[in-house]
């Protein structure tokens, strides 16, 4: 995966089994540095897209068919440790958030969320990127 020269040319992968949720994230997005948004509807598809597109940022749902978000997060971090993953999930218990962070996610945003909450969370993710 190419190094990020600056936070102005980023790819974001949105992973969620709900089209409504994927569209919700894309519409709320107000970050000029995100150049391209790509989507996947389950963990297996997400891994294929991840390897093909090499995004620097990922929003990851947890409860999905095929492969859940914890499994997909673990594999993405193994493939590319510098990826920044924001879990966006309805699962509101602390244990789930802690588990996601242990597996390599960098943040957790609870559904439902406001536009500002999403953009703030992604901005924090971007600050942690290499050369960010």
């Amino acid at each position, binding site marked *: 995966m190419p190094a990020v020269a600056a936070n102005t040319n980023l790819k974001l992968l949105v992973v969620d089994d709900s089209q*409504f949720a994927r569209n919700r994230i894309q519409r709320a997005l107000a970050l000029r540095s995100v150049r391209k948004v790509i989507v996947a509807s389950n963990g297996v598809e997400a891994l294929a897209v991840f390897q093909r597109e090499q995004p620097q940022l990922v929003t990851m749902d947890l409860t999905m068919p095929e492969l859940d978000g914890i499994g997909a997060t673990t594999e993405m971090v193994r493939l590319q440790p510098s990826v920044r993953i924001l879990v966006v999930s309805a699962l509101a218990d602390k244990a789930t958030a802690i588990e996601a962070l242990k597996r390599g996610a960098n943040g957790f945003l609870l559904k439902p969320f406001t536009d500002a909450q999403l953009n703030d969370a992604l901005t924090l993710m971007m600050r942690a990127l290499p050369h960010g």
Partner: protein
Amino acid sequence: MDENDLNVLVEGTVRYFESSVDRAAAVGTPYLLTERGQAVLSDYTGLIGVSGARRGCIYFTAPSAMLRHILLSHGETEIDGRYMADVVGEVANIISGNARRVFGHDFAISVPDVFSGRPEAGKLRLGERSFVIPINWRQYRAALVVSLAA
């Protein structure tokens, strides 16, 4: 399932509509389904299976006009039956998932199973005590149905 459990889901339903759509919903007093098997169903239903410390199901059921209105309020323009089924499942997922704030990690929920009209035989199995939480949003009437056993 006791009154406190039910209140968690009532409050979760209120919070969802307050934060997700452009107008809050009026959530009515929950009532017990008196006839087992007589499910309350609208046009589209998102069904969540629950396992762990509590077992059973939760479903959100709503008329197509309400789902269309919700989607329009989010800026969607290309709305078909598949998309309405998607959103009814997502609402069920969010309300059920948020309940883990109180119920904890052992409140395991499935991915949403969505259907329109009546479910296939055997898909919707309600327990002995199932509660209906009426939801009024704008001019529409929907419901969250909770059928859980400890």
